[in-house]
């Protein structure tokens, strides 16, 4: 079974703090993703990575950065947390359906971690 774990289920931070959210997968997946989920907005992609040290912006990258130093681990960093970053953060991983360099990349089946509910006060 695929397992995706996230470092915390619940996190409370103060405005201006630097926040690290960690995600680890054990299936040797190339792709990893960070989403945030807010009521009425569904899941929105923040960043994704298709290989170690590779990253690409998603739909809402502002205020976030990421790090992928090892294949199994993908970190989301809030450089200076703000109250509008209070949200549910979900990490996912997948195999790609084609390899980078062959043009079109696509997403195979995604598997999600349990989520981190972050509150910024």
């Amino acid at each position, binding site marked *: 079974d695929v397992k995706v774990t996230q470092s915390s289920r619940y996190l409370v931070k103060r405005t201006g703090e630097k926040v690290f959210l960690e995600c680890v997968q054990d299936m040797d997946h190339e*792709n990893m*993703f960070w*989403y945030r989920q807010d009521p*009425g*907005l*569904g*899941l*929105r*992609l923040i960043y*994704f990575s*298709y290989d170690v040290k590779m990253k*690409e912006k998603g*739909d809402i990258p502002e205020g976030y950065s990421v790090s992928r130093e090892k294949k199994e681990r993908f970190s989301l960093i809030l450089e200076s947390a703000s109250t509008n970053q209070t949200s*549910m953060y*979900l990490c*996912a991983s997948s195999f*790609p*359906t084609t390899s980078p360099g062959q043009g*079109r*990349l*696509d*997403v*195979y*089946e*995604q*598997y*999600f971690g*349990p*989520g981190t*509910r972050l509150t910024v006060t």
Partner: protein
Amino acid sequence: GIQVEQSPPDLILQEGANSTLRCNFSDSVNNLQWFHQNPWGQLINLFYIPSGTKQNGRLSATTVATERYSLLYISSSQTTDSGVYFCAPSGGYQKVTFGIGTKLQVIP
């Protein structure tokens, strides 16, 4: 990007009833997943179904890619089916788009 519409947005069922959830998408897709988000927030994979029909117990799903829709059928619903159901199509280059979901409540 792809626009995704899920219907109905909310659904209340008596235990044992059947239901159909619909997902319309605006563009051609290569992949499509259905997820169930339980009350604790965990997204559980139900189906990976870019086309055709699949069945898993009381659940089945059909995607008609040429007509840009997918359906999720839940038969003999149980209280444990409660939660939010998401459709997530992907049209290429790692971009998966999520609908805002159908919130299902199954009452005993």
